[in-house]
């Protein structure tokens, strides 16, 4: 099965839940949990565009929605 990559743009939000988690909130209102956001991008309300891959790991301690791996990311 081919890997599906998604290009998403939005704002990074830190949630103080379960020890802390970063989410990408897109303009369409999606809340995507990012499991490997690079530290240099860990900034509240930072606008970014990112190429994401839906994680094969469907279970997490965050329990806040689907998990995404960040493949590429840049500030916009």
């Amino acid at each position, binding site marked *: 099965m081919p890997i599906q990559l998604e290009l998403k743009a939005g704002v990074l939000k830190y949630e*103080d839940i*379960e*020890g802390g988690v970063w989410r990408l909130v897109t303009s369409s209102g999606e809340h995507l949990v990012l499991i490997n956001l690079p530290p240099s991008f860990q900034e509240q309300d930072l606008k970014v565009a990112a190429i994401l891959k839906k994680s094969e*790991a*469907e*279970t997490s*301690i965050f*329990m*806040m929605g689907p998990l995404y791996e960040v493949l590429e990311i840049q500030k916009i």
Partner: protein
Amino acid sequence: MKDVFDLLSKFYPITLGVLGIGLYVWNYLDQTNKPKGWLSYLLIILAIIHLVCFYANYGFEDVWFWIWLGRDVLVLVLAIILYEYPKWRLAFVLFFLGFTGYWIYENHFISSEKFISTISDKTEIEADSSAELIVQLHDPAQFNTLRDILERTSFPFEIKEAFPQLSNKELTELDNCYTIDLPNEEAARQVYELLEKQNIIKTVEWNESYHISPIETNANPSPKPPRSFQFINDEKSAEQWALDALNIDALAKQLKRLRPKKTAKIFILDTGVDADHEDLKDNYFSVKSDYDKDTHSHGTHCAGIAACVTNNQKGVASLNFNNRFCKITSITVLPGGYGRQENIMDGMIMAADLGADVISMSLGGPNYDNSQSLYEQAVDYCNKKGAIVVVAAGNSNQDAKKHVPAACNNTITVAAVDENLQKASFSNFFSEQHYPLSAPGDNILSTVPNNKYQPFNGTSMATPYVAGILGIMKSLKPDINTEQAFQILHQSGKKLDTHEPVGTFIQPSKAIMQLLQTRRTFHWLIEWLLKLFTFKK
């Protein structure tokens, strides 16, 4: 010192039995003109030990001290008198054998229940401060009549002057006012209806100071007075609002004298646990060294909530009073905080095979296709092996049925509430769960790796509180199953007035009381017959 007294109090009935038998032997030696000097000294020492143990059990401040001391003296005097009548010697021996036998029976089978029944008039009242009435008499001289009326009800109560500080009693009739503490609102309602009809009562009211709802405000809240707990000495316990909400003092008072039938094993299926943490290591057992480290913190945090070392003057406290009821261990199923369902299920099966009593899973994911069915099969397996599985509701502010394992029909699923006992903003809620409960899950202080402590938020934090009380329940009643445990926690819990349903808020002391009361039915006859000769007040 407190521990020494606790230990001595356990020997109290034995010392009475030994003293009685010693007197019997002394009498025998006396009547057969055999030397008994050594025994006389031994008896004096025994009598002193007995008094110390007796004091440890009752304490001078308690009126029962004098009542039961009188009883013991009477028993010993009777023993001496009976010895003078050879026909009665056998009765004396049987009497003491019966005494000793009952002690063993009591301590191994019914001590827990009896303790609960005898302290319930205090503990239960403390557990629900909302059940308080305030009454005003026409005449203060009618106080004893009021007390008689209350004593005729079946409810335990405490009555005291409502305004003892009045300095100008001649200016008011408030000195005729008394507060009546009752165990719960239902009892208070019945007593209220009873008192309304009494001629001696001028007015009877709910003590409204307990019914004021918190006022919502955006202003910074004024700092709350530091919490202090009567039975907990952990350094940071004052920062644990959850201990207050769960009424840990009432629970500790109960657990203080209960003997667990086993040490329950709580398995934390998470990111691993820092087994060397100063507030965990004495209460931790390892199943595999790989699982005894935590690079994330989440698993260590959950483990601390479930059963960290309590009363060690360090760190935080858990419900596991004096560390006698539960031990914790870890199976790492989400090393980086996320993983596959198969890993979780493997962990569940491993935990069940290793004899888990409680499996705590602060994790979850979307409820796709047949994922719920697979989880339910794994939970079934755990249940059949004797484990209760408790899981987090999830943090999406959605119906928990959209998440697994939260949606499973055979797990206890836990939502999070905040310090105002409202649903935490992030917490999922319930519509169809079979076993929904709620527990503190906002701003929860607990252990994190490297001997540190941090507050976390999440339904993950609420889940191990429920796992902790389930562990205690399992230690007292090892064969309890998910359905029974849930019913007890549900019925004894506090109903919350929240916008979305989050299940009843656990009240551990009431749950333990209810758990033990279910076992009482088998012993009521013996308890009734031996009421006067019970060893604990």
